[in-house]
């Protein structure tokens, strides 16, 4: 499993980021380094769950605007700043789904599909690939999120836990259960 270097930072990097945050609290122009650092990451998170590229850029902009406006509320609690941004992004995303501005989309690569098939002890063939795609669509959104983050975005359980505001262990258990559900549906 690859590790997101932007998410799992060294303590010095985290401290540097905290300085930027404190400066940005007093001067919005000082938010620029944080924006540059996390824009792509947040955009990819949003675009992974959306079909429309322009809409994904719009939602990303909304996320950073909200972050800037609510920066005074941000408190460092030992988790990276990006986990806070992810939560804002999730909230904005689901708001756009509720407003029917965007359609919930799952973007998968064939390689990732075969990887999941392998995880659920299936044979890697075209038929199973199509079956898995249709099975994913039958899952509940909470389960899709976990499968998506774990297998399609290659996130660590720690990162998943921090984004979903649950413990690392809980993220691991929930991801396992989601995979079990997928397996059950796939084999039926």
């Amino acid at each position: 499993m690859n590790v997101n270097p932007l998410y799992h930072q060294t303590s010095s990097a985290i401290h540097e980021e905290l300085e930027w945050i404190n400066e940005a609290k007093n001067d919005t122009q000082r938010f620029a380094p944080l924006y540059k650092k996390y824009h792509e990451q947040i955009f990819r998170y949003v675009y992974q769950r959306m079909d429309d590229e322009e809409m994904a850029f719009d939602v990303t902009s909304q996320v950073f605007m909200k972050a800037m406006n609510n920066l005074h509320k941000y408190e460092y609690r030992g988790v990276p700043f990006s986990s806070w941004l992810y939560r804002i992004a999730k909230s904005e995303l689901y708001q756009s789904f509720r407003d029917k501005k965007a359609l919930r989309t799952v973007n998968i690569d064939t390689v990732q599909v075969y990887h999941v098939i392998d995880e659920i002890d299936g044979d890697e063939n075209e038929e199973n690939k199509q079956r898995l795609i249709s099975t994913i669509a039958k899952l509940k959104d909470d389960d899709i999120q976990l499968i998506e983050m774990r297998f399609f975005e290659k996130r660590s359980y720690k990162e998943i836990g921090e984004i979903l505001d649950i413990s690392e262990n809980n993220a691991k258990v929930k991801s396992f259960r989601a995979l079990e559900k997928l397996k059950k549906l796939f084999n039926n």
Partner: protein
Amino acid sequence: MDKIKINLDRTKLSSEYIQSKQNFTQITSQALIKSSLFKSAWFYGGAGIASIAGILFIALNSQKKNTYETKITLAKNELTTKITQISQINSPPKDAGAKGISSKPTNKVDSRTELSDNLLAKSSSVLDNEKELLQVGTSHAIAQPIEIAIETKHSTIPKKNRLPNISGFYSGELPLEKLCSKGIEVNEEVQILSFKIQYATVKGDKFLTIQGAHIPSKICKDISELGIDQMIFLTEILGKNETGKIMNFTPMNFTCLIEE
């Protein structure tokens, strides 16, 4: 979530392309507009002040309206009372209906009509500021006496007269002979016990307590000796009704006319 779309092998966007779409200036300006409008102390301060001003305006306006309405109500009440008095004066003792007033002989109205006019004029002055009401009130009272009587008939004010009078005069100008002929009267049930009178003599003002309802001939003589019209004040008029209850009646004042 109603529907989920699944895309397989969608073209990946390059990091360069995503970075090219970064626009921090736009984010800052939009964030500033939002925060400056809704988050600033000025916004809340302004909104707060506007709210307080609005509340004060409404409160003051309603108070003003209340005062205005109270004024109108008081004026209305006063007018109704006066009109009632007039109708009572004008109606014959045993037939107080509307018919009585309309069939009343015109030659007998004379000074009483004057009194009615005086009372109405007084009432009108109370309503100086309420022109509309004044017009309605006076026009009904003067131009259509029959209608007044009808209104009085349905009024809640008791029919029995409770205002003291001398020879049917309640206030205003009163010839000396009428002042001295009959005593103070209220109605058949009331017997006047005493009253105080203030008048001028050649030796100066006098303030006396009189037992009974009649003005003593000594006082009439004093007034006559002065030889000029003067104001007579009758106060602390006490009387008792059929049940023996002692009652204090409204004071009166007259301009006593000395006829030459």
